[in-house]
């Protein structure tokens, strides 16, 4: 499966916080224009992986390669940091704290453009307009402060900000989890449109299997820092092999679903706590 054309390749990635292992030997690749989902519950390490890829955390083991360049170690210069910013970008979960409350969308996007390009004001203005139109914000919304915008509108601003750097990979860290169902649908459609138009690849971090089905071609299931199953999304969700994936799948409410009590042992040495990876592909 190693893909030399991969736009993102993660191999043997690990992260320990003191004695606690948050991420343990995780490997995956994303092809150009592809989309991969990392599925897991709390404590699975999925957010830590995202933070390591964008450089907010430092891996304790393994390698991360994006657009052919290694980024397992922190960037050494400001130029390097900015270059990395043009390779991988991220949209966070909480629309209420991921924007500077004192800046409008226009100002936010403009700042990013000034960071990466030495363009004159006119060209920047045009590009800001292009981006706000791409994410579906009108003129009033682009000039408003975040507190005048709804959660869905703020996420659009966050997406536009991320795209302003023209990244090859966009990490969506539970980016629609905090949105109302009807707004979530709009943003999911928007993300699908953006991927078609710009050819960006997605790394989707999510606990929501339906969202994963909608947006990701490939899926990796994570539990307590380890990969337990991987494969094309359809296969992993329709025909799960690992116990944990099956349990996850069975826990999702759908028409006709009834929750049943299961025996959750609390002893850590019970076999159901062991992770043994199974592949669906």
């Amino acid at each position, binding site marked *: 499966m190693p893909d030399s054309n991969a736009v993102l390749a993660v191999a043997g990635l690990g992260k320990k916080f003191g004695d606690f292992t948050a991420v343990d030997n995780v490997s995956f690749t994303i092809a150009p224009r592809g989309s991969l989902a990392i599925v897991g519950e709390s404590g699975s390490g999925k957010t830590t992986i995202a933070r390591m890829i*964008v*450089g*907010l955390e430092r891996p304790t083991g393994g390698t991360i390669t994006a657009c052919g360049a290694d980024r397992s170690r922190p*960037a050494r210069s*400001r130029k390097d*940091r*900015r*270059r*990395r*910013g*043009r390779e*991988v*970008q*991220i949209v*966070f979960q*909480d629309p209420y*704290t*991921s*924007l*500077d*409350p*004192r800046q*409008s969308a226009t100002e936010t996007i403009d*700042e*990013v453009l000034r*960071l*990466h390009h030495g363009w004159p004001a006119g060209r920047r203005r045009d590009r800001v307009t292009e981006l706000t139109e791409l994410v579906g914000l009108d003129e*009033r919304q682009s*000039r*408003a*402060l975040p*507190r*005048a*915008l*709804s*959660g*869905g*509108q703020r996420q659009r601003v*966050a997406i536009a*900000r*991320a795209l302003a*750097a023209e990244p090859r990979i966009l990490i969506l860290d539970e980016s629609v989890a905090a*949105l*109302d169902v009807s*707004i979530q649908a709009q943003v999911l459609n928007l993300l699908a449109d953006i991927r078609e138009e710009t050819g960006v690849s997605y790394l989707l971090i999510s606990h929501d299997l339906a969202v994963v089905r909608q947006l990701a071609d490939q899926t990796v299931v994570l539990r307590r820092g380890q990969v337990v199953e991987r494969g094309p999304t359809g296969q992993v969700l329709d025909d799960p092999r690992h116990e944990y994936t099956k349990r996850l799948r069975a826990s999702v409410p759908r028409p006709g679903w009834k929750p049943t009590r299961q025996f959750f042992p609390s002893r850590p040495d019970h076999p159901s706590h062991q992770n043994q990876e199974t592949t669906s592909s």
Partner: protein
Amino acid sequence: MSAAIPLGAGAARRSRPVALLRQTGAAGMASAAVIAAATFAAIFGPLLAPYNPDLPNLSLAWVGPVGGHLLGYDFQGRDVLSRLLAGAISSMAGPLAVVILSMSAGAVLAVASAWRRGATDAVVSSGLDILFAFPGILLAVLAATVFGAGLIAAAIALSVAYMPYVARVLRGSALKERGQPYVAALEVQGASGMSICLRHIVPNMMPLIVAQATIMFGWAMVDLAAISFLGLGVQPPTPNWGVMISENEVGVLQGYPLPAIAAGVCIVAVVIAFNILGERLYERAQAARS
């Protein structure tokens, strides 16, 4: 809860000072008026003084309010009102310098240690804790001993004493901003720490900084007045409210309290005004956070 404000209801831009002031209520606005009056006196005092504030005339010492002399004469026969007006500048400039110095130094330390976190934060915090142990007046006395008495030495000493307090108060707010996802987003974009701190973190701390500076002006005024009262700050014959209290102190017991009390009232009024305004601004800063 996506509760967007409908169109037109207010994509309120940067808070204008006037609107800000109106939100502090009647007490806040009254305080602002007092402060404005004191500032006006500081700038234009010597011009407004009806009589010469510096010329002594011992034959008129302690004479009460008569003729055009609304507050009478002080212990050296100088017009009290003129002296108050002329003394405003030294009484206000000192605290201003203290606030500017201590807030700047404190803010830099707070933001720097919040940004770096880890070891830097621990070392700076410990260093500040040590400095915290020295009360302002003690440092002023030390400074006077080493550098000689005077307003500049006293102001610097007080700034050093206040700085750890400022740093501690601002550090909490700086840490909170530092931990917000919008800061992380800028880091991922490749923005430098310096530009994130200056363009994003500090501006978002502004309501707290302004509130803190306002309250501190009041404290600095009291401390500097006390230092001048002790003879270690502004030196006579330079007019200064704190000095006027000590100069005219003997008159209080002899039945001529007006000069000393008048100076005291000036100090108290301005300090209370700064306290009230500062606390209102602080409340507003806290409310805006939530």
